[in-house]
């Protein structure tokens, strides 16, 4: 009886100890990064001389949160930018010219909270890109008089990456070098500056 108890204790101990061992496998730390002047240009649009419009074309600028770099890979990308359009690597193409095919399990939603306050991912809110629209659609406000695009304060993009991890993004500016008071007539547009936090650990829903 005593030995059995001892054995049980030993088993429990080993069990707990091994549990401790599991905890000792350190999670990769998350850190905040800033991407400056991600160029998201295109060609086409409206011809200044004729006023005729042609479909916008050109490669989307793709970004991979895990590497923290832009990429030309057709599969290993999480989010991509062209002009004001932001797409994610999940769902289906909306049919734009030169729009990349979705190969991953990506999804996204916009949280109406400041960046720092988004500490948890709410997986029930995720939507994918589709033929009727993009998961990330209303990230900016447009001032028709100043002709200015400004990223709406208090909105945080929560992204599911192409391989099912999570990231949160705060867009800072649409203008080159993110001037504090941009001028739509002077500053070059289609340059994204954004902060992001990437959660590299599988299945972890916090930042």
């Amino acid at each position, binding site marked *: 009886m005593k030995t059995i108890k001892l054995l049980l204790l030993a088993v429990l101990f080993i069990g707990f100890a091994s549990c401790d061992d599991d905890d000792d496998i350190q999670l990769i730390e998350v850190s905040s990064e800033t991407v400056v002047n991600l160029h998201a240009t295109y060609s086409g649009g409206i011809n200044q001389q004729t006023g005729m419009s042609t479909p916008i074309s050109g490669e989307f600028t793709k970004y991979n949160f895990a590497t923290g770099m832009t990429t030309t890979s057709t599969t290993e990308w999480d989010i991509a930018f062209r002009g004001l359009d932001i797409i994610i690597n999940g769902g289906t193409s909306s049919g734009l*010219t030169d729009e990349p095919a979705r190969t991953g399990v990506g999804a996204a939603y916009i949280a109406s909270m*400041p960046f720092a306050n988004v500490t948890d991912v709410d997986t029930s809110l995720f939507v994918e890109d589709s033929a009727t629209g993009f998961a990330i659609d209303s990230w900016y406000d447009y001032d*028709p008089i100043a002709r200015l695009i*400004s990223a709406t304060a*208090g909105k945080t993009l929560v992204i599911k990456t192409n391989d099912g991890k999570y990231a949160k993004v705060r867009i800072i500016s649409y203008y080159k070098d*993110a001037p504090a008071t941009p001028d739509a007539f002077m500053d070059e547009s289609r340059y994204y*500056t954004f902060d992001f936090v990437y959660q590299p650990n599988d299945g972890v829903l916090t930042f």
Partner: protein
Amino acid sequence: MITKQFLSFLFSFFFYITFSYSQEVQVAVKDSTNVEQLNEVIVSATRTIRQLSSLPLPAQIVAKKEIESTNTLRLNDILNEQTGLTTVSDFGGGEGIQIQGLDSQYTLILVDGVPLVGRSAGTLDLSRITVGNIKQIEIVKGPSSSLYGSEALGGVVNIITDTPKNGFKGNLNYRIGTFNTHDIGASLSHKKDKLAINAFINRYSSDGYDLIKTDDFNTVEPFSNYTISTKVNYQFNKGTNLLVSGRYYTQNQNSVPSSNLNGETDTDEWNAHAKLRHRYNEKWSSYFEFYATRYKAKETLESQNNPLFSDSFYNQFLIRPEIRATYKPNKKSSFIGGIGYNHETLDRTDFNVKPEFNSPYVYAQYDGNPTEKINLIVGARFDAHSEYKSQFSPKVALRYEVNDKIALKSSVGYGFKAPDFRQLYFEFSNPGQSYIVLGYNVLFEDGELKPENSIGINIGADYKASSTLTFNINIFRNNINDLIEDYLIENQDLPIQFQNNSINTFSYRNVNNVYTQGFEINGKLKVNNQLKITGGYQYLIARDKDAETKFENGEIFARIGNSADFQLKKSDYFGLANRSKHIANMKVFYTIPKWNLDTNIRGTYRSKYGLSDTNNSQGYLDKYDNLIDGYTIIDFAINKKLHTNYTLGFGIDNLLDFTDTQNINNIAGRLLYGKLNIKF
């Protein structure tokens, strides 16, 4: 809240007053008669001749005397000095007037009772109008669509031009000032027996000015313009007369929108107005009126390698016949009724169609005194329209004379502004930003875009403290609904043939509900025949109701620079753009008869305001935005009569040399001028 600027405004003002008039103020002799004030009559409020002081509506008059003694040149300058009115410049460069916090596009501008057209970007540029031939300017505040139809939400500004007086008279006027600004005017008038005729010509030119020297273009480019007008009145017999008048305005201005583009802008406008009046008897009179006007603007631009870079034009035409009748059954009451037809066309760049508006209308009004102490006005107008829903605009106004000193007045009215041609038919594409703007009717079914409309309530009191001191106060509230704004349409909401994923499409919709409320106080002190002091103040709150809700619910965030976003509180909401909470003016007019000298000093103050959202808070203004500091403008003028026919004048506008080069483009700094006037 009295801000620092306001204190400095008061201080500097009283400094000038004491400095200039310290001796004279002491000899304040009571003046028993106040003829000038009693004689002031106004036609705009009721479309009949009414004594201003007995009117149940908030209204004011700027008399020729004030225009002359302040040496004002253009309409915007003189209106900006009136209580509750603020000149605001739109992004197209036009200067309009804000009344009770309503935007300039909601104020109807009339000349002798008929409207001016030509609002290419919404604002009717008041600097188009010379004040050289103006008898008086009438301002009626609050919705007045019951008499005037569209555009009269905030109020009506009616410019009454000179009428010929007996005999042969002439007037020559020349003013020269800073920036090589010249204003030359001449008028001739003749009246004998049945025929009265006058003619007026004005030339106004300036080299313009440049507030930001580092860029390649001027703030205001050089321009010159001419105004020619004439009026002929023929009195067939005691009861019948025919009045015919015409006006022509033309302006040429350089246009340099960017460093590699230049060209010029030409504006041409004419108005023709005929009015046949017949009095049948003591009770009945009728008017047959015909009015036509055309406003044309044209801009041509060339770049270094393209002599025909762009060529844009705007050509609006309005024709309006109207018949009206007045009926006065007795001394206590009068009726007026009218029926008319508006036909309007517009041809402009960025329109694929040449739209036409047709709008018959009918109106009626009762103005009576059921008892000696009560004056009641009840009126309504019905506007049918070819392009939008018919509008019914009622108005009621009541004045109660408590005693000799105090009278109470109140009015409630409806005002509307029809969707303009641009909001219905625009087909504009912007090359740089790759978006297009399409008018509502281009995309959707006609008639579904509603007119912007408002209900305005005014409650006030007149107080006559003595024969020399009067006050009035007016509390107002305007609820404005269905404001039209442009918005980005989701692709799937567009009709199939317009769906295009590559371009952002903007159109117009009824969305915002806003309100303006506040109060206005005016005081007038006539110390004696030599010294008159007037002052006015307006307190204003102008807010968007949706914004209030969003701020309250904590849905609005802001960021300063690239710092962390933070939530805004309800109290952080700053209200609508370009509205100042406090505006004030003070004017001192002083005459020294023995020297034939009259002089005046006028100050206007407006408190802090915002122009646009600068901290990413969904387009709404909050107290953390880059707001524009309040400011004070002080003007000074002195005129001396030599003999009876010659007047020499000198003045300084913007004495304190205020400028805000970054934010305010219509204030050029200190302006000096000299003036010569010859009357014969």
